[in-house]
Structures are given as structure tokens and as C-alpha cells.
């Protein structure tokens, strides 16, 4: 009950948010922050049970026939993520209140961001994979709404669409993967699948399922070559960037990889694919970050790099790597969320995010500067911050990687050097040196804007000094969930003078050197602009343009606005489909079995066909009406011959009405003109004759094909005894199938209303 409440309370508040915001005004953020705070405290209360290996469960049937259950469980991994989501969520809600203060659509913003928070909690708490998928897509959807929050701007809209198409597309791949995995493992419950892993990895569908899962995880976590949506998503207001696009949503892919590790992991395919994607993303993100000058874009690319590190660690797959991944997850969420919020505060106060026009802010914004400095130090991996421990563990894990350890370590060192430089550019550079002219005269940010970054940065320091606070209560149960084995974790600052420490020192020194040489690399990147056709975002744009072009072309072709071409398409398609049905099933009866036609019947048939020709080719409207009458009465006579007196009576009545109506209306219309050319007449005649011939063949085939036993016997038996009527046709209409007749009457009534309205309608 409690677990579901943690998720659905968020959705409920999201619905109420716009209304509550009208009452609470400036205090909304502070009040709303109480919910995630309560959730965090509630969930943290379970850490003892979780550590003891007792997962907390709750399950509700949703669509039992499809195996969709709303089942949740809380283990170490879920708890770690859920605490990050709710804890940072509380800070972000407060921050957003200050950042978007006075914004006309702030109520809507709270609604979206709470919806995101609830969905994200759903992702990490779900046990059922299909429920996970639904929450997963809900996070993509709320991310779309939040990126496009400034919807008047073209950039925001296209960035939102780009993020949605990529993460949503990946989500569809994930759904396919889930269904494959469900069919292989016999269950959609993660906890059940984890017990049947041997079977899954041996199964021929393992590889397709794995690839689909990876596609889902890589798109969500912005792995190369899908990384480009994340910098684009910086069009969102900064609280969103801090929350969704650095601390939580982009980690959903990492969560999925960690969660699926006991089920899908451990194979060579997993190891190579995940390692490769992670290593490539780590390097690409870092290289692309270096030439940026916009604070948020710098942070976005370094986030891509950090996500690459996390994925790489999960790909390496050793116990060391899992340990490093979980510690770095916490480290990164804290410093990156803090830096993003700091960047937003600086932007808010100075009116610019360009590092080249910022400087000397430490005197004006000391608290913000303190938060930025602490977070940046954690990002560089400076002792005694938690970032230092994280980086040591990462180097350790890379050093012990089972394959290509030197290569992975080499790339990792390069990426980390650049990250040190980025940390210095973002977290230190704006605050030191000379003051520079900014669009707005800067002041210290208000409490709501510095509380979040300072809290997170301080947490980085506190946990660095006392890593024991989370080591065994939070991090090791999470690792246990990934590795499915008992782990005792000792986190400490000082590991002794060893190779890894030397690497750390080298990284920081090289990063500082690179910081001073950054302008050289910026110029170098400027020269590489010509290579931009190589980037995936260009492929994305080309693909999107191509898709739109195709859509337009096929719309022009199919939705051409000519009724007769629509009809022609329908007729040709029908002929094609019926043709197979005519040819494939056997059962052509010899013609002798048919009753012989009597001479007056032949006369009737010939008369009807002649009348049809007259109706088609007569130039006189009255003649055409008479010809139609002949055909209609001819049909009635056929009904008379073959035991259908009711039909005959109805047909004669209706036909009379139809002809009268036809004459009355056509009298107001112009005489027939030859509108089509001879060629199209010939083409239409050909299609018509082919269709007619096909229908003739269909009649002959249908008369001796009994696909289902007839149900007429029931009506014949029971008409008198049950419904007290001798005329079986009438009994069917008014008794056995009375509801159908009611429908028919309704149709007639609707038609009558339509006719009446059209006749009375007075148009200007």
C-alpha cells in the first residue's frame, strides 16, 4: 500500500498542482517539497529491511489477462534511486519556485514536474516490466512537456520533439524487448525472471531481446550515437535540466541496465556492447564539452560523458565496477544537480550563461560561489569530497576490467582530464578574476535558489568525510541487487599511496593545464566545423526531413481529393483481395446442378441488364429514372419467384419512393453532360467489367460453399413456439433480432433528420 502511495500521491498532487498554486502563490514550491521529502523519509525508513535482503512488495492486478500487474518492490537498487529522485525532487521544487518566480504558467510547471517525479519513482519501484514500461514512457512524456515548457519558442518545441522521438522510439524498442523476454522467461515480473536467468541466456531470442533492451536504455541515457538529444534538451528551464536531464531521468537507462544485469547480463554480448557504448559515450561527451562556452551546454555534454562512465562500468560487470557505478551515481547526481542549479542561479541573477562574459562573482554571490566551488571540486575528484572516492573506485574498476583494460583506462583518463577542465570552467571561472559587464546587475541569489545547490554540494563534502553514512546502508544493498550476491563495502578516502592515487593526481594536474589551454582547443574545434555532417544530429534531421517528405508525398498521392480515384483504389484493392479468396479455397460446382432458368426469368434478367445500360448511357434524366425503376421492380419480381414475399412488398414500396424522390431532386439538377474523356471512360469500363465478372464468379462460388452451419434452423423451429409468429422473417426482425431493427430505425431517423436539416438549411 505504502509503495503505491509514494507513486500515486505524486500523480494526485500533479493534478491538483495548478489549483493549489493559485492558493499558495509564492510558497507553492516550499509546500510541494514536503511531499517528496515525506516520500524520502518514508522510504529511507525501510533501509534496515532492505539491507537484510527483505524486499518490500505491493501488487495490484491491472490487466490480468495480459499479465500486466501494478507490482512494486523495494530493494537496495530501488531504494538508492528512489531516494535520489525524491530527495533531489524536493530541492528542485523549492528551486523552481524561485527560478520561475512570477511565471504565468508556474502552476502547470509544477504539475509536469510532479508527474515526472511520480513516473520516475514508478520506473524504479516497478516489479512488473510492463508497468515499468508505462512509467518509463510517462517520464519521456513529461520530459517532452518540460523541455517544451517555453512553447512559444521554436527551438524549445523542436528540442522537445527530438527528445521525445528518440527516447520514445527507444521506449518502443524496450516494449518489444519486454515482450520477447516475457515470452522467453514466462513472466513479466522482474523478481521472477531473475530466478530463471540460465534459461534466458541460452534461448535463441536472448540476443534480440538484449539488443532491444539496450536500445531502450541507450536512448534514454543519451549514449552515443543517441547522445545529441540531451544538449538539445537544455532548452528546458534550468530546474528541469538539473532534475531530469542530469540527476534522474537520464539515469533511467543506467537503472534499467543495473536492474536487468542479473537477468540479461553476464554474457559476452552484454559485456562488449555495453562497454563499447559506454566508453564511446564517455569520450565523445567529454570531447564535445570542451569547446562549449554556455554553462548549461558544458554541463550537458559532461553529463553525457558521466552517463557513458556509468554505462561503461555496468558493461565491465565486475564487482569492483558495480561498486564504482553505484558510488559514482550518487556522486554525479549530487554535483551535477548542484552545478546545474548554480548555473541557473547565475543566469537568473546576471542574465547570461556565457562563461566568457562572467567573472568575479564570488564577491557578489558568495553562497552560490561556495556551492559551485564544492560541487566543482567533487566533479574534479578532489579530496576530501565524495567525488574523490568515486573517481578512485572508477579507476580501480577500469584497471581490473577483464578485457582491454589499458584502452578503457586510457580513454577514461582523457575523459576525466577534460571533466576536470569543465568543472573548472563551470564552477570556478565565473566566480574568480575581474568582474565583467553582464546584461543584469547581479545580486546574491535568494534562499530558494541557493538552498538546493548548497545542500547537494554540502552532502558531497559530508559523505566524502564520512562515507560510512551510506556505504553499508544504501550503496552495498544496491550493488547486491545488481550482482545478486552479498557485498561488504568499505568506502574510505585514503587508500594508501598507489597507482590509482597517482592517476588521480595526474588527472587533476593535466585538467588544470588543459583549463589554461582551453582557448586553443576551442579554436581547433571551430576549425572542425566542416566535419559536422558526421554527427548523428544531422542524420536525425535528415531522417526526420525524409520522413516528412515521404508523408507529404504519399498524402498527395493517396489523399488527392478526387472521389473517383479514391473509389478506384478501393475497387482495385477489393478485387485483389477477393481474387485470392476466389481462387484459393476449392469447391467449384459444376453448372448442371443449378436449377434451370425458366424462359420468363431469362426475359426478366435481360430486361434488367438492358435497363442498367439505359440508366448508364441515357442523356435524359427521366429515362434514367424509369430505367432505375425497371431494375428495382425486377429485383422485387425475383424476390417473388424465390419465396420472399415480404422482401418483394418492401422493395416495391421503397422503389416507388426512391424513383419519386429521384425525379423530384434530379429535376433541379442540370442535364447529364459528358464530363470524362474517352480514355478514362474506357479505363473505368474495364475496371467495372472486371469487378462485375468477379462478383458473378463470387455468386457462383458462394452458392455452394457452406463455411459455417446455418443458424436458420433455429428460427424455423422456434418462430411459432417461442415468438408466436408464423411469418419467420418478420419474427426475426421484430423479435429475435429486435435490437438490430431498433438500430435500423435509428439510422433511418438520423437520415430523416439529415434530410430535413439539408432541406431547411438556409445558407448565406
Amino acid at each position, binding site marked *: 500500500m505504502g509503495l503505491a502511495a509514494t507513486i500515486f500521491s505524486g500523480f494526485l498532487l500533479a493534478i491538483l498542482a495548478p489549483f493549489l498554486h493559485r492558493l499558495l502563490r509564492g510558497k507553492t514550491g516550499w509546500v510541494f517539497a514536503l511531499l517528496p521529502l515525506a516520500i524520502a523519509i518514508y522510504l529511507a525508513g525501510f533501509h534496515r529491511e532492505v539491507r537484510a535482503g527483505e524486499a518490500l512488495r505491493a501488487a495490484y492486478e491491472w490487466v490480468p489477462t495480459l499479465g500486466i500487474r501494478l507490482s512494486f518492490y523495494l530493494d537496495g537498487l530501488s531504494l538508492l534511486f528512489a531516494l535520489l529522485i525524491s530527495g533531489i525532487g524536493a530541492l528542485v521544487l523549492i528551486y523552481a519556485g524561485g527560478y520561475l518566480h512570477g511565471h504565468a504558467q508556474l502552476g502547470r510547471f509544477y504539475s509536469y514536474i510532479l508527474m515526472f517525479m511520480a513516473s520516475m519513482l514508478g520506473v524504479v519501484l516497478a516489479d512488473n516490466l510492463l508497468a515499468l514500461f508505462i512509467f518509463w514512457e510517462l517520464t519521456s512524456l513529461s520530459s517532452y512537456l518540460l523541455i517544451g515548457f517555453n512553447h512559444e519558442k521554436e527551438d524549445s518545441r523542436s528540442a522537445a520533439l527530438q527528445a521525445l522521438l528518440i527516447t520514445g522510439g527507444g521506449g518502443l524498442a524496450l516494449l518489444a524487448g519486454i515482450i520477447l523476454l516475457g515470452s522467453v522467461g514466462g513472466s513479466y515480473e522482474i523478481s521472477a525472471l531473475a530466478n530463471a536467468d540460465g534459461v534466458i541466456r541460452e534461448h535463441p531470442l536472448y540476443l534480440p531481446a538484449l539488443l532491444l533492451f539496450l536500445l531502450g536504455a541507450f536512448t534514454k541515457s543519451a549514449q552515443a550515437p543517441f547522445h545529441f538529444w540531451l544538449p538539445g534538451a537544455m532548452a528546458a528551464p534550468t530546474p528541469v535540466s538539473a532534475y531530469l536531464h542530469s540527476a534522474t531521468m537520464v539515469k533511467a537507462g543506467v537503472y534499467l541496465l543495473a536492474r536487468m544485469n542479473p537477468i540479461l547480463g553476464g554474457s559476452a554480448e552484454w559485456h562488449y556492447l555495453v562497454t563499447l557504448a559506454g566508453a564511446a559515450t564517455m569520450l565523445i561527451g567529454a570531447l564535445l564539452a570542451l569547446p562549449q562556452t554556455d554553462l548549461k551546454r558544458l554541463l550537458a555534454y559532461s553529463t553525457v560523458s558521466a552517463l557513458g562512465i556509468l554505462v561503461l562500468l555496468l558493461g565491465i560487470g565486475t564487482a569492483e565496477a558495480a561498486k564504482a557505478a553505484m558510488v559514482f551515481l550518487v556522486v554525479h547526481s549530487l554535483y551535477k544537480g548542484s552545478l546545474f542549479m548554480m548555473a541557473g542561479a547565475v543566469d537568473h541573477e546576471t542574465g547570461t550563461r556565457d562563461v566568457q562574459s562572467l567573472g568575479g562573482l564570488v564577491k557578489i554571490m558568495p553562497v552560490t560561489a561556495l556551492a559551485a566551488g564544492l560541487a566543482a571540486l567533487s566533479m574534479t575528484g578532489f579530496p576530501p569530497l565524495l567525488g574523490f572516492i568515486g573517481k578512485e573506485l572508477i579507476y580501480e574498476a577500469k584497471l581490473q576490467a577483464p578485457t582491454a583494460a589499458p584502452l578503457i583506462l586510457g580513454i577514461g583518463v582523457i575523459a576525466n582530464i577534460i571533466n576536470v577542465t569543465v568543472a573548472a570552467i563551470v564552477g570556478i571561472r565565473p566566480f574568480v578574476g575581474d568582474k565583467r559587464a553582464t546584461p543584469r546587475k547581479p545580486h546574491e541569489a535568494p534562499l530558494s535558489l541557493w538552498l538546493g545547490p548548497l545542500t547537494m554540494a554540502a552532502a558531497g563534502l559530508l559523505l566524502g568525510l564520512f562515507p560510512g553514512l551510506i556505504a553499508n546502508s544504501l550503496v552495498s544493498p544496491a550493488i547486491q541487487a545488481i550482482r545478486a550476491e552479498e557485498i561488504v563495502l568499505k568506502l574510505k578516502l585514503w587508500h594508501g599511496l598507489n597507482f590509482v592515487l597517482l592517476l588521480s593526481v595526474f588527472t587533476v594536474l593535466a585538467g588544470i593545464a588543459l583549463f589554461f589551454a582551453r582557448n586553443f582547443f576551442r579554436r581547433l574545434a571551430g576549425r572542425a566545423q566542416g566535419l559536422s555532417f558526421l554527427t548523428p544530429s544531422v542524420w536525425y534531421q535528415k531522417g526526420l526531413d525524409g520522413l516528412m517528405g515521404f508523408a507529404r508525398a504519399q498524402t498527395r498521392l493517396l489523399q488527392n481529393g478526387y472521389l473517383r480515384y479514391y473509389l478506384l483504389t478501393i475497387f482495385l484493392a477489393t478485387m485483389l483481395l477477393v481474387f485470392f479468396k476466389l481462387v484459393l479455397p476449392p469447391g467449384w460446382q459444376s453448372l448442371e446442378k443449378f436449377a434451370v432458368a425458366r424462359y420468363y426469368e431469362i426475359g426478366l*434478367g435481360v430486361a434488367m441488364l438492358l435497363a442498367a445500360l439505359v440508366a448508364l448511357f441515357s442523356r435524359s434524366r427521366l429515362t434514367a429514372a424509369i430505367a432505375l425503376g425497371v*431494375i428495382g421492380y425486377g429485383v422485387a419480381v425475383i424476390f417473388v419467384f424465390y419465396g*420472399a414475399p415480404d422482401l418483394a412488398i418492401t422493395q416495391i414500396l421503397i422503389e416507388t419512393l426512391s424513383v419519386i424522390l429521384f425525379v423530384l431532386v434530379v429535376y*433541379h439538377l442540370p442535364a447529364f*453532360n459528358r464530363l470524362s474523356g474517352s480514355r478514362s471512360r474506357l479505363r473505368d469500363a474495364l475496371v467495372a467489367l472486371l469487378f462485375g465478372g468477379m462478383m458473378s464468379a463470387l455468386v457462383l462460388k458462394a452458392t455452394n460453399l457452406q463455411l459455417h452451419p446455418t443458424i436458420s434452423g433455429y428460427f424455423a423451429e422456434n418462430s*411459432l413456439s417461442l415468438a408466436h409468429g408464423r411469418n419467420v422473417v418478420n419474427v426475426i426482425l421484430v423479435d429475435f433480432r429486435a435490437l438490430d431493427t431498433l438500430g435500423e430505425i435509428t439510422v*433511418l431517423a438520423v437520415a430523416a433528420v*439529415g434530410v430535413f436539416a439539408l432541406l431547411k438549411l438556409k445558407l448565406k
Partner: protein
Amino acid sequence: MELLLAIVIGGLYAAAIYSLLRRSIVKLVIGLILLGHATNLLIFTAGGLTRARPPIVAEGALALTPPYADPLPQALILTAIVISFGVVAFTLVLVKRAYKTVGTEDLDDMRGTDR
């Protein structure tokens, strides 16, 4: 007889389709009427033909005694006749109204109006 009816039905379908593919709006209505007739006959014939044995329980009998004409297709066709009348009536009035409003009987000229 089935052969004859098959030819009549095929002929009616051919006429209906040729008429539906014309540009004149009145021909469209003629096509619709012919299509209704052809389809009713198709259902009737496909259900099996029984000469002169209407599905009416005789005086004194408790149920129909075979052979009798199948009542089910008849019930379907009875509904279809009435519905196609509704469709034709509505179409006729719509056609008249459209002609009055747009001022042309050529369907190709009418396609500009929904752009």
C-alpha cells in the same frame, strides 16, 4: 437460374461501378442505387435459392417444414433495403444542396471546397 442471377448481379455491379466512377454527381447517385440492388441480390442468391416456398409456418403446423426459403438472408435484405433507401434519400438531398451551394455538378470542381 443461379447462373442467370450471377450474370445479372455481375452486370448490375459493373454498371454501378462504372456509374460511381463518373464525374457527374447525379451519376454517383445512380451508381449508389445500382450498388444497393446488386448487393441485395448477391445476399439473396448466396443464401441459396428455393422456389416458391416462403418461410411462413403453415396453419396447423408448429414449425417450418423443409424445403423452405432461408428466412435469415431475407431478414438481412429487408434491413438492407430500408437502410439503402435512407442512404439514397440523404444522398439525393445532399447532392441537391451541394449543387445549389457550389454551383457545379462536376465532382472534380467540388474538390476545391474542402481545402
